[in-house]
């Protein structure tokens, strides 16, 4: 399969290359914004992008918050992108290579914001998928909860939190938990996210934690402990392992994002569906990453991993 056939099969891949985005996921944030307009708010100042590498969401944030804006509009605007992996620089974005669960990271961001709270926090992070659906969904939810911990310490009241989710068997549990912290929780599926994928995004609007709850990041306390006391009853610690009980579950409103004219990520396009010439092949923007199994691939290529002993 050549470069072009992937372009035909996946218009967003093609578009990302054309527009200089590091990954096609940039369109997911753009399409979420088309419906929610959270990035079009003139009062939006401080923004945090968690699990940001390779940086396509930060690119969108930078574009939306700075491109073509007046000096007045961009006054006090600040984007901080955090990831454990290093990231190449993006205009108007301060990148931090740091652990989102660590209190030090929180302090660094707050320092960058001059101790002001953030207006918007987003995370497009996803763990390695093992194929064990329950584990993969759990780890993804833990990742969201970790992002949410930091968010709870940094987001202003009324702020917005957006994160990637997998809509599996326990997604309604997550919706229910988020309901304790935000006024409104929507499950949004941008058109650029494939229909065959379990991926979607939670858009949590109006950060509104319980008034009696104090959030403190501590490296030795678990996510469960962090959120205990915030009406997330299941997260409290018992002295005796409790018997099984059904978790609280709620279904969040579903919203398809991106207008009908947006490309369909499940469709195969024809060359003549567009004015532009699909035959011009574009090189990928991001050079391929180094997978952990790089050496195994090399051994396989050189015929060293064969069936015979």
């Amino acid at each position: 399969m050549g470069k072009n056939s992937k372009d035909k099969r996946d218009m967003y891949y093609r578009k990302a290359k054309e527009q200089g985005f590091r990954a096609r996921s940039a369109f997911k944030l753009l399409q979420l914004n088309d419906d929610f307009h959270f990035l079009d708010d003139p009062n939006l100042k401080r923004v945090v992008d968690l699990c940001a590498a390779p940086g396509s969401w930060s690119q969108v944030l930078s574009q939306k918050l700075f491109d073509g804006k007046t000096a007045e509009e961009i006054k006090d605007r600040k984007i901080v992108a955090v990831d454990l992996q290093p990231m190449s620089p993006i205009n108007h974005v301060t990148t931090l290579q740091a652990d989102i669960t660590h209190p030090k990271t929180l302090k660094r961001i707050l320092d960058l914001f001059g101790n002001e709270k953030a207006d918007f926090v987003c995370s497009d992070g996803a763990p390695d998928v093992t194929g064990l659906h329950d584990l993969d969904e759990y780890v993804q939810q833990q990742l969201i909860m970790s992002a949410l911990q930091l968010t709870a310490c940094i987001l202003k009241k009324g702020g917005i939190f957006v994160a990637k989710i997998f809509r599996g068997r326990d997604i309604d549990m997550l919706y229910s938990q988020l309901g304790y912290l935000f006024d409104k929780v929507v499950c949004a599926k941008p058109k650029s996210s494939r229909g065959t994928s379990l991926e979607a995004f939670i858009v949590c609007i109006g950060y509104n934690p319980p008034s009696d709850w104090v959030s403190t990041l501590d490296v030795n306390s678990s996510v469960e402990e962090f959120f205990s006391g915030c009406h997330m009853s299941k997260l409290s610690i018992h002295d005796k392992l409790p018997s099984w009980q059904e978790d609280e579950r709620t279904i969040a409103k579903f919203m398809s994002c991106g207008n009908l004219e947006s490309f369909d990520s499940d469709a195969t396009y024809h060359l003549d569906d567009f004015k532009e010439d699909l035959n011009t092949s574009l090189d990928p923007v991001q050079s391929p990453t180094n997978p952990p199994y790089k050496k195994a691939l090399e051994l396989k290529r050189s015929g060293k991993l064969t069936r015979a002993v």
Partner: protein
Amino acid sequence: MKELAHYGPSLCVKFFKDFVVAGYGPFVQIYDYHNGKLLNKCRVFRKNKVHGLSINESGQLLAYGARSVTIVKFDHLITQVSLVDNEKMTTEWITSGEFNYRGDQVYLLTCYNKVFVCDLTGEILSRKTLQGERSILYSGSIKEFSPEKVYISAGTVMGGVLIWDLFLETKLYNLVGHEGSIFYATISDNGRYITSCSDDRSIKLWNLQTGEELCTGWGHTARIWNLKFFNNDTQLISVSEDNTCRVWDILQDEGNGNTSLTLSQIYEVHLIKNVWGVDIQEKDMVAVTSGNDGRLKLTKIQDTKTMNAQEVSFSLEDISTHSVIKFSKGEIIKGFQKFEFGLIAITSLGKIIQYFECDNLWKLLLVSENLVSYSVTHGIMEHNIVTFSNNKSDALLLKLSQDGRDIIAKKFMHLDELSKTNNCLVTKFDATTLMLTLESPNPRDKFICLQFDLETLSLKKKFAFAKPENFASSCLEVFENYILVGSRFSSIAIFDTLNIEHPAYMIRRISAGDTTTNIKFVETKGHTHLFSVTNRDGFYNFVALSYQNQTHQIIHSNNIVKGFLEGAYFNDNGEYITYGFKSNLFYIYNETNCYEIASQVCGGGHRQWKLTTLPDGGYMLVYIKAARLYMRKIPQSLFPQTLEEGMHGREIRDITILKDKRYHDDGFIFCTASEDTTIKVCHFNESTGKVTNHWTERKHVSGLQRCKFINGKYMISSSAREELFLWEINDDYKLHPFITIRQTLPASSDNPDLRIMDFDAIFLEHSDNFIISTVYSDSSVKLWYYNTDENKFHLLVKGRYQTCCILNTALIIFHDKLYLLIATTTGYLVTYDVTDHIPFGINETKNKLIDNKLETCCVDLPASSLSLRVHQSGIKAIDVFKDEHNDSFKIYSCGDDNAMAITLFKFDEMKRELNNTIVSSEPNSAASTVTSCNVFDNGRKLLSTSVDQVVKVWDVSNNHLTLQEEKYTTIADTGASDTVSGRDDSTLFLIGGIGFSVWKTD
């Protein structure tokens, strides 16, 4: 509704005494591994899957999975159906759990690297953690060396393995060296080693005393999920995403003291992809593995010593040293035949030599000048007969005494009528005779078949048949009075011994074109005889032959996974066993249930070889490699090969039941279409839900989208790469249903890159001809006519909706019109009136089309007559129900937007047009994507499945969606379902995703 049976991923498995204990979804299943019997299936969790097990000596079992944990008595587990009342919850995902040595406490390691020490009632006695390290774990294990010394091995997502002391809560090491997440880490019993595996596909061994990395093992081609030390910590067994389990030897170099990990055995144990669990019973050296395919596989772990004892090999030099036989320089073995006493071989100088297995001795039997340089060797093992032929039209037959010591009959023949011979085949003909065929390269020469007495070797009869064109004999089968000879170019010639003058009945080009390697009689039905025919190119076919009518039909066709196919047969369980070569291996494979029985490195095809079934059920493979003669015994396994057969290793995308009739009067045939690119043909028992696998069809090269029986004999499947196949099923025979491809839908380009998302068919009256609508990922809509007699698809209508992908289609006859419906990724239901675009009339009462004998031609898709947005995003499935008074029809739909809807279509008599309206919709019908819906109970009920793993039944009798019943399913990625009416007004549901289950309504 209740679940009758469930097949799906098994994540953990353990030996305990004479039992195999497996976590199977939310159940613990216990088997007697000696006879393979399932002793009990006990539900331990309500929703969570059992991810891990630990059993202590006093018969307590600890099971954990996700946040659930339970401690139960083994005695209860083996007798009770459910122990869910005992299920306890923790606050975090449990990564590992073990009993302490005394058996009165358990350690539970969570994914946040915390350990709860609990008593057996679940009371937390203490909580331990490693301060300052809060990485999430994918894996970990607990090793108790003494009540005071417990070590935790924790595999982080950042490539490090943390080894820490539980009670001191101190870190011993952070072992760094792997790339990517650590998927398993464990400590050896003797306290010397730690072993770990990661996303980098390697296994590392570390010194527990020093923390230094000792060595790395490479071999797995995908991620490794589990590791276990065995054989006094001198060996490791690993299981992986690559479907294999591998045995590694931990070797210590006595010179420099270096340790190495050497791969010693590879077993292909599961279907793509993922082997999750492994354990070893060292007493019998048998491993049990559990996989995503739901299979529980037992594998005898061969140690080098036993392996060596089961193989003997000789060069002519060796034979010479161990006997008085002398060989000349350049003399080689030309052929051999296995016998119970040993073996008979012939050399290039015509020396016929004999091997006696019991005393490991070689003896010269005789020397034949006639058999110098070229010879072909065959024989009949059970009658101690060996046959030789040369290229000068000679044949020599020898019969030996039972012990092989004496020649008790001998027959030499020369055939004057053949100018030259180049091939000879032998088989037993009837109770008292054998048939030997001789063939000359001269096309004008006759094909000679000689019938000899099995006792005296006297010639009973000679048949000289006219040789068909393009014929070169390759294999032989006899049946009644017929001789079936396989040939090159995938052909078979059938000769009638009662009618020698009759030209051979030829079956040509059965598959692509290589040599027919094996023909086996299967069964007879009426005047039709069924034969299994294998082809070297990897295809196997079942040919139904009616010699009387001089007709035949290929009723089954399939190809093996990989490699050359040399033969196949049905074993006593009715399982189809295939054998042949792949790369440098000889394999024996259970094709019915898709697992390797044995494999032997032999250098690959292109060599002299013979496979013999031994009286005890084992095999003997004799082959020549680098001028050495090898005799490899493959013993019959002392245990069953599997405890659970399992199904697909990846997602089931669609299910279709053959509803027209029951199979074997106790259930139904069904097909499953999977992401793994195969279609399985199975049947289920309607009272127990038990699934029996019949075939795994491998014609598709891409992940399946749909499969659907369109009548009692045709099934259609579609997938990416624009593949759509029309299959014909045949369930006339006792042994198995058979299925073969009748026709392939033409693709729109030479390099098809479209997915055929769905199709629907309507038949013409009084025929098996039908029209079919197909919808594509590029928004194309096509309508075809299939004519059975011509066996051809004709394109009738083509067009494109817009540019979005179309997910579903239906053809509906309503008010003397034919409507083509499509459902899109944008959530629209779009209706086309194609009545005037097809060359057929409409018989509404019969719901069929009328053949008006008009010409077929291709026209453009008309403009849509109705378009209605029913869902916010992709419509995942639709079902159609037409009410009995024909006033309306309904489309039930479900979507990615968590919603379900009923759209009512009515015909406006005034305006003479169709209109539609959404009469009921349920936006939050599930917490996530609703993936399938099936209307049943004569339109009164609707079944739905969704990715949140809830199966729902809705009452839709008054055009309104009213939830009637819901139940959790353990099948993840729930995505396919079909229903069929059972006995006593019940309905049976088949539900698929990652796993498969059979449900029944009350």
